[in-house]
Structures are given as C-alpha cells and as structure tokens.
C-alpha cells in the first residue's frame, strides 16, 4: 500500500513538473479535462498555445480541473496560470492524503543508517547482462533499499501498524532497533527450544509484548521490519548462532 501511495506521488510530481511549463499543461498531462465547462481545445493544442487558450475563454467562467487520479478536483477561474492550477491541485491532493510525505517524515523522525556506498562500481562492467553500472543505477539501488527500511521504521515505531492491542510498539524497548542483535540469527533460541530466524523473533515480540497477530513470512510489514532492523546494525559483524 505504501508503495502504491509513493508511485501516485511520483506521477503527480511528474504532472506538476509539466504543469509549470504553461497553462493547462497539468490538465493535458492528466487524462481528464474539464470537458463539461465547454472547452473543446485538444490538450496538445492547449499546451502549445497557452496564450491563445486564455484569450479564448470568456472572463468570469470557472473551470473544473480533475487530477489524473480521477478524484481530486479543483475549480479555478478562467485564465489561471498553469502553475497556480497545479499548485491548487497539489494542495487539494495533499489535504486528502496527509501521509503523502511519509518517507520524508519518517526519515526526519527516526535516524536510518545509510545503505552501502556502491559508487566505486560506477563505470565498471557487471557481466554481459547488465552492462556498465551508471551513477543512476547506484542511486536507484540506494533509494529503493532505504525506502524498504524506512517503511520498516514506520511500522517499528507505530503500535497501530503493528496491530498492538496494548499500545506497545517495538521502539519502546528497542530505540533505533538497539538490543535486537539480528546478526546473531539464525540461532537456537533457548527459551523457545528451537532454532529461529530473525523474523520468528519479530513475530514472537508481536505476539507477546505487543499482543498483536503474527505476520505471515511474506507480509510486506514483516519484510520491511526485518530490513529496518538489519539496516540499523550496519557495521556489526555477522556471527550467527551467538548467544
């Protein structure tokens, strides 16, 4: 769900970037124009001739503009500049999606250890399939990995996301994921009498101190929790089975 939200935001940003080019470009980049208001200019033409479009609309007419999500809508007076339309759309969309900036917000609240620096690989050939590694590749790897860990941080610090029935979240005992020592898993968990993986221990915590429901192994929440906990132990040497 988080990823879905993020990609919405990405599309919108793209729309805004285009929108700042001229009047109605935001509308053009979106699927729906405000056909109801009687404007029949094809979007491409409108984008090419912003001045003409403004002149063709009689003053005092209001125009409804619909965002590409098909739901967010603003009504603006004719002649409003493209930047203002885009700004109004963005404001409306953010109002309806208060968590839109979850990634930025989460990273501001809770320190995340940066992912590994792969910049040394730039320009090297990584086998025939992938070709030469570009700076964009390296940035993409870092952004995507850190996004999963950040999503984990958001779950880790939120009792509701964890499904706690007693308002307890992981950070209440493990600030910055301290004292989780994931580098020791798999290990024989003496208290459980069997070998467990990190995810088993996360689920044990979710069921017991947190009093929620255990997550399935492929649950995105569990995967991101695991990513966050491991990310925070950057620099620790793996020593599996250590008590």
């Amino acid at each position, binding site marked *: 769900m988080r990823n879905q939200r993020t990609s919405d935001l990405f599309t919108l940003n793209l729309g805004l970037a285009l929108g700042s080019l001229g009047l109605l470009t935001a509308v053009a980049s979106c699927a729906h124009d405000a056909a109801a208001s009687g404007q029949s200019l094809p979007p491409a033409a409108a984008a090419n001739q912003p001045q003409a479009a403004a002149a063709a609309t009689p003053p005092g007419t209001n125009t409804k503009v619909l965002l590409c999500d098909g739901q967010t809508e603003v009504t603006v007076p004719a002649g409003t500049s493209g930047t203002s339309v885009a700004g109004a759309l963005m404001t409306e969309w953010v109002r309806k999606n208060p968590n839109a900036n979850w990634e930025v917000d989460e990273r*501001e*609240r*809770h*320190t995340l250890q940066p992912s590994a620096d792969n910049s040394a690989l730039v320009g090297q050939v990584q086998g025939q399939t992938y070709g030469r590694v570009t700076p964009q590749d390296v940035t993409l790897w870092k952004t995507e990995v850190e996004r999963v860990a950040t999503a984990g941080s958001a779950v880790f*610090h939120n009792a509701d996301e964890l499904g706690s029935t*007693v*308002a*307890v979240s992981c*950070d*209440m*005992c*493990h*600030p*910055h994921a*301290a*004292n989780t*020592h994931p580098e020791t898993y798999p290990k024989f968990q*003496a*208290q459980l009498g069997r070998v467990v993986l990190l995810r088993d221990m996360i689920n*044990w*915590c979710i069921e*017991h*101190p947190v009093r929620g429901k255990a997550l399935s192994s492929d649950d995105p929440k569990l995967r991101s929790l695991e990513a966050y906990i491991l990310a925070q132990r950057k620099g620790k040497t793996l020593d599996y089975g250590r*008590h």
Partner: protein
Amino acid sequence: MGADDKSSRRGRFRSVETKHLEERADFFDALKRLDRRSFLKVASAAFGSVAASGLVTPHSFQPVSIAHADSKSVQPFTFAYISDSHLYKRTVNDRFVNALLRAVDDVNALDPQPDFVFFGGDLAQLGQPEELELGAQILKNLKAPLRVMVGEHDWYYDMGEKWRALFGAPHYSFEHKGAHCVVLNSVVEKDFWTARNMTPMERMKTVAGLDNGVQNSFTVGAEQRAWLESDLKGKPANTPIIVFSHSPLYKLYKPWNFWTDDADEVQAILRRFQNVVVFHGHTHQVLTNRIGNIHFQGFLSTAWPWPYAPEGLPALTVQMGRPDPFNPNDGCGNGICSVHPDGLADIVQNLWNRNPITISRTYTASLGKKDKPEASTRRSF
C-alpha cells in the same frame, strides 16, 4: 518555595499515614524551636492529651530526636523510590498498571518503613488526565509520605496542567534530617511544535518516542537555574545536597535524550558543595556516574528496561545483565536509598527477577576502587 506551601507541593493526594507522619514531623519541628522549659511543658501536654485520647502507644511521642541542632551531618535515613511507570488507562494496557501496583506493594512491605517514597517521573505514558489520575490513585496506597517529580511523558500533552493540579509545582526543595533536597523539572524542551503546527497529541507522541529526532534536548532552563541558585544561596559548603532530576544531569547520549543540555551550568551551581548526590529516572537501568563532587544514580523503571546507550556510558557503571525478553518483569524494579551522615547514599536496586544490586556510596566515593558491585553473569539472551 519554602515549607509554607507544603500542601500545594504535595498536591491533594495524601494518604492517612502521610498526613499522620506530616503532623508528627511538624510537631517535632516545633519542639526544636522551644527553650527547655516550654519544651517540657509542650511535650508533656502533647503526650498527655494524645495518650489520654487513647490514640497512641506511650512511646511514640517520646522526644528522642532533639539534639542535632547545628551539626551539618545528616541523621541517617532511608527513602524508597518508584519510577517510570508509563501508565496507560487500564482498559488499554493493564500490564504497566499491575507493575506499578507491584512496586507499591514492595514498598509497603518494607519494615521499617522508609521516611518517604520518591516517584521519579513518567507516571503516565501519553500525559492523559486519566493516566495521571490513575497513577495518583495508585500512589495514594503508599503508607509512607510521597514526593513526586515530573517526567516528559507527564508534561507534553497539556504542558503540565493536569500534573500540576495533582502534585503542585514541578520544582521545589525541602529539608530532611539535615540533608537539603532539591527536585527539578529537567525535561524542559525548546518549542519545536508551534512551527510544525502539531496537535497536543502529536507533540506528546513526538516527545514520548525516545529515538524521535524531531524533538529538542532536555534542559533545566535559565529560570530554574536561577531558582536553584537562590535556593542554595547562603548554604555552607558542607551542607549535604540531594538533587532529583528526571533526566540524568550530565551528557550521556544525545540521540535518546539520556542528556541534559545545560547540565554543565547546573553542575557549576552544585560544584561548591562537598557532597552532592543526584538521583534520576528516565534511563530505566542501573546507571552510576561521578563527576567531581557530584555522584549520580539512575532509577529502574516498573514498565520496561532501556538498553544501554551505544556510546558515552560512564566508566563507573556496572551494567545490569541484558533483560530476558521472555520475562516481562525482567530488568524492571524499584529500590531503596540509604543516606548516610556524610550526605552520600547507598542504593539498593531491587530488580524483580534477579538478586538485588547494591551500589554503595564507598564505590563512587573511591572512584570504583572499593566495593565494586558484582557484574551480572547474564550478559545476553
């Protein structure tokens, strides 16, 4: 703040025992101010009238504690501590409520009873009026008189409004058997919420997150530092000083606010005294430090233990073993502090699931050379 507004500082929640002990203490204070002749008159009158009404056994009003007028040594005493209960409403989470009840039972079972019980702050988890009221109700069950300090979890929902209504001013001082005791509000944070347009609950939850980087560092603040200076003014350097602060009054680990930003300034005010002991909550662990003349001891929590900070740990701290996650009470507890004539104190950390750890005053006084507490055999799980 002096002895005159005793009632506001302790709030309206006082048990029958507390009231009795206060009246008794006032009576003995009054006795000290009398000359010998009128003393005998008052003492016999008081004894006579009280004995006649059949309220007390004859020995309880014998004037035995009169002769320590000018000496600057402390008449030894003990106090118990309970700290960091982080209560939610019982319907939300009963585990923390039961833990505080357990601590109250522990302290009530002490024989002899301590002179007073000190609560080290963070009574509530999210500063809700219901949480604070529940805590006040539970602490009312203590037999010994109660002194309370504020923590950040009590404060940042309504900026201390409910807490002050229950317990009075957040900083105050009192004399106890020759020791001068000061209670500070060390969790003052610079405004980070207005600019971010936060609701009271958002502000509370930000401060409640130990690793939340949006908030600012704790301080005592210029206003309280000025108050502290005037409170200690004129006191001779050999006066034993006991300070209570929620956060440690030194700089341990900033990312978790195991930290007081103006600690250096506060320490400078305390530096001229020979013996100062600072007791603090917030860190939920056995934590020992000494900086010059100032000795520091941390309180355990009843709710959950914190891990030790990854850096900055004082050299004098002998760590308690890593708590067992499979035992919800492990690493939690309460404790007893014994104050000696020199004003320094032993602290018994009563860990619920383990043997108690005693950190004696000679350990910090000798900078770790004598009486080193035994290290835990359970370093990890």
